[in-house]
C-alpha cells in the first residue's frame, strides 16, 4: 500500500474515534444531569436555584450535543477528504464542498505540502528522464562496442586489472574453446589452458610490465592443425595512468606463413631449375674459351650443348612467366573458335621427331565435325603438346599413345584424353602432380622435367578456359591425362560470322 493511502486511513480512523469520544461524553453529561436532578429533588434547594441548575444542565446537555454534532461533522468531513485522497491519482478535493474551517485548513496545508512535493517530484522526474537518456546512450555505446569486438575477425580478448575476462569475441572463444558470451568476469587462467596456450602468461606479463604494445608470434593448435598467429598485447590505462586492463588481438597469419614458405620454395626451385642449364652453359663456354675442346667435333658438341641448354632455359623462363601471368590474371587471352582435332594434328607434327625416335605409335581418332571450343589457340596448343610430350616421355620405346576426342552434347562439352602405356603414377602421388615443380619420385630417372608443365596445363584449362583437367593412372600400366572444355556456344558462332 502507498504511504499517502495509509495516512488517509489513519485520518479516517482518528475522526471516527473522535466521534465515539463525543458520543460517550454526551452520554456522560446526560447521566450527570440525571444524577443532578435526582440529587436536587432530594436536597433542600429553592426554586431559583433549581431553575439555574436546570438551565446549566440543559446548557451542558446542549453543548454536549453540539460538541457531538460538531465532532461528528468534522470527522465525517475529514473521513470524506481522506477517502477522496485515497482514490488512485486523486486530485485535492475542492474546499467549497467542505464547511468546516479545520477541513479547509487541513486541505490548504495538504495543498501547500503537495505543492512542495510537486516541485521536488518534477525535479526528480527531470533527473530520471536525463538518467534514462544517459542509460540508453550507454547501453547503445556498450552494444556498439560489443558489436565491433564481436564483428572483428581476429580473436580479441580483454581482461581487467585482476586478470578477469571483460569481453572476448567468437573467434577467441572458438580458438581457445570457451563460451565467449557467458564467461565474463571469469579468471583468464580458468578459460585458457596454461599448458596449451602461453597467452595467459603474456597477458599477465604485459599488465605487470605496463608495456603499451608488445608483438608476439604464437603457434596454437586449432581443430587438429597448428595455426600461426600474430599476437599484439596492449595495456589499457585509466585517467591516473594505472593499468586497468589488457587487450590481446590475435591475427591468423597461417596463410601468409604458408604463402611465404611456398614463395620461398618456389624461388628455391626456380633458382635450382635456372641454375642447372646455366651451369652447363657456363662450364661449356669456359671450356671453349680455355681451348679445352681439342677438335672441331668436340667444339661442335660443346656449342650444341650450349644451344640446347639455352633453349631449355628459355622454355623454363617462358613457363614460369606464363604461370605467373595466369595466376596474377595479367595474361592476354585471345579467344577464338578452335577445333580441337586440328590442334591435336598440328601438335602431333611438332613431336613427330620425338615419337619416331622412341618408336612410339600414336593412335588418333577420326576428326569430329563439331569439336569446336571457344579458346586461346596458342594456349590450347601448349596444353596438347605438354600432355602429348609427357605421354611419349614416360612411355618406354615401342609403346602406344592413344588420343581420344569426345563431344558430350548433353553436357555441351568436348573431352580430350591422351592415354599412354607408360610407367604410370603411384596413387598417393596423383593428387600432387599438378603442383608447381612437383615430380613423381619414382619417375625422375625416367625422364627430365621441371615439374611446371602440368601446372601450366591445369592453369590454362581451369583458370583461363573454365574447363576441367582429369587424370587416371596405374603403375606399370599407363596413364590417361585429359581435359574437358565447354563447346563453343551460339554467341561464339555469331562472333565467328562477324569476323
Amino acid at each position: 500500500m502507498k504511504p499517502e493511502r495509509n495516512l488517509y486511513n489513519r485520518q479516517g480512523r482518528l475522526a471516527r474515534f473522535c466521534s465515539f469520544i463525543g458520543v460517550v461524553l454526551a452520554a456522560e453529561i446526560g447521566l450527570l444531569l440525571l444524577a443532578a436532578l435526582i440529587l436536587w429533588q432530594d436536597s433542600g434547594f429553592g426554586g431559583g436555584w433549581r431553575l439555574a441548575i436546570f438551565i446549566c444542565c440543559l446548557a451542558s446537555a446542549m453543548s454536549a450535543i453540539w460538541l457531538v454534532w460538531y465532532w461528528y461533522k468534522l470527522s465525517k468531513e475529514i473521513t470524506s477528504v481522506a477517502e477522496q485522497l485515497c482514490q488512485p491519482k486523486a486530485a485535492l478535493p475542492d474546499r467549497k464542498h467542505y464547511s468546516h474551517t479545520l477541513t479547509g485548513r487541513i486541505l490548504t496545508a495538504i495543498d501547500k505540502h503537495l505543492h512542495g512535493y510537486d516541485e521536488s517530484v518534477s525535479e526528480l522526474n527531470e533527473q530520471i528522464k536525463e538518467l534514462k537518456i544517459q542509460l540508453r546512450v550507454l547501453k547503445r555505446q556498450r552494444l556498439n562496442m560489443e558489436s565491433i569486438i564481436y564483428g572483428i575477425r581476429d580473436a580479441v580478448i580483454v581482461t581487467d586489472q585482476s586478470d578477469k575476462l571483460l569481453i572476448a569475441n567468437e573467434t577467441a572463444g572458438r580458438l581457445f574453446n570457451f563460451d565467449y558470451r557467458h564467461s565474463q568476469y571469469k579468471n583468464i587462467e580458468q578459460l585458457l589452458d596454461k599448458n596449451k596456450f602461453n597467452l595467459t602468461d603474456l597477458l599477465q606479463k604485459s599488465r605487470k610490465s605496463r608495456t603499451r604494445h608488445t608483438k608476439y608470434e604464437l603457434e596454437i593448435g586449432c581443430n587438429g592443425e597448428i595455426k600461426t598467429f600474430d599476437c599484439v598485447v596492449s595495456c589499457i590505462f585509466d585517467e591516473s595512468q594505472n593499468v586497468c586492463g589488457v587487450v590481446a588481438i590475435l591475427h591468423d597469419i597461417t596463410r601468409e606463413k604458408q604463402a611465404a614458405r611456398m614463395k620461398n620454395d618456389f624461388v628455391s626451385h626456380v633458382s635450382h631449375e635456372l641454375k642447372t642449364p646455366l651451369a652447363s652453359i657456363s662450364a661449356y663456354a669456359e671450356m671453349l674459351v680455355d681451348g679445352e675442346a681439342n677438335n672441331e667435333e668436340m667444339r661442335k658438341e660443346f656449342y650444341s650443348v650450349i644451344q640446347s641448354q639455352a633453349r631449355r632455359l628459355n622454355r623454363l623462363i617462358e613457363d614460369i612467366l606464363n604461370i605467373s601471368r595466369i595466376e596474377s590474371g595479367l595474361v592476354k587471352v585471345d579467344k577464338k573458335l578452335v577445333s580441337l582435332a586440328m590442334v591435336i594434328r598440328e601438335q602431333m607434327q611438332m613431336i613427330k621427331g620425338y615419337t619416331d625416335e622412341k618408336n612410339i605409335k600414336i593412335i588418333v581418332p577420326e576428326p569430329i565435325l563439331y569439336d569446336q571450343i571457344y579458346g586461346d589457340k596458342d594456349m590450347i596448343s601448349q596444353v596438347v603438346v605438354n600432355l602429348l610430350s609427357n605421354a611419349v616421355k614416360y612411355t618406354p620405346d615401342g609403346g602406344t599413345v592413344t588420343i581420344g576426342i569426345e563431344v558430350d552434347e548433353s553436357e555441351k562439352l568436348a573431352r580430350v584424353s591422351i592415354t599412354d602405356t607408360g610407367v604410370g603414377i603411384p596413387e598417393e602421388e596423383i593428387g600432387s602432380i599438378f603442383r608447381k615443380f612437383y615430380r613423381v619420385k619414382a619417375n625422375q630417372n625416367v625422364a627430365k622435367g621441371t615439374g611446371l608443365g602440368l601446372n601450366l596445363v591445369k592453369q590454362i584449362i581451369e583458370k583461363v578456359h573454365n574447363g576441367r583437367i582429369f587424370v587416371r593412372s596405374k603403375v606399370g600400366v599407363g596413364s590417361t591425362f585429359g581435359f574437358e572444355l565447354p563447346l563453343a556456344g551460339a554467341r561464339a558462332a555469331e562472333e565467328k560470322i562477324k569476323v
Partner: protein
Amino acid sequence: MLNRKVLVVDDEIHIVHVVAIKLRSNGFEVITASNGQEALEKACEQLPDIVVTDLQMPVMDGLQLVAKLRESDKTKDIPVIMLTGRSFTIEKEQKEQLQISDCLGKPFSPKELLKKIEDILYQKAVSN
C-alpha cells in the same frame, strides 16, 4: 703420380660430361654416376680418392649419399665436394657433421672445381 680417381655424380649428363673432360685432360681417372644410389655402389666398389656430387638428385640426394659414405669404414674418409644449385647453402653444422670438404655453387667454373679437387687431394696426401 698415380692416376687419382674422381667419382662425379650429377643427374645432369652435360655437367658430368664437362667435368669428366676437364678432369681427364688433367690426368684424373673419372667414374660417373647419375644419382646417389648408383654413386654409393660405385664408391664402395672402386674406392675413389674424391667424390664430386650434386646436392639435388633423384633416388638418393647428395646429403644422403655422403651420410651413407660416412657409415662404411671403406668410404668414410673419402673427401666430398658438393655442387649446389639451390639458393641456400648447406648448414655449417651439417657440413661439419658430414665432413663435406667444400661446397661449390652452380653455375661453377670447371677450373675452380679442378683447383679445389687438387687442393683437397694435396692436403689429404700431406696429412697421410
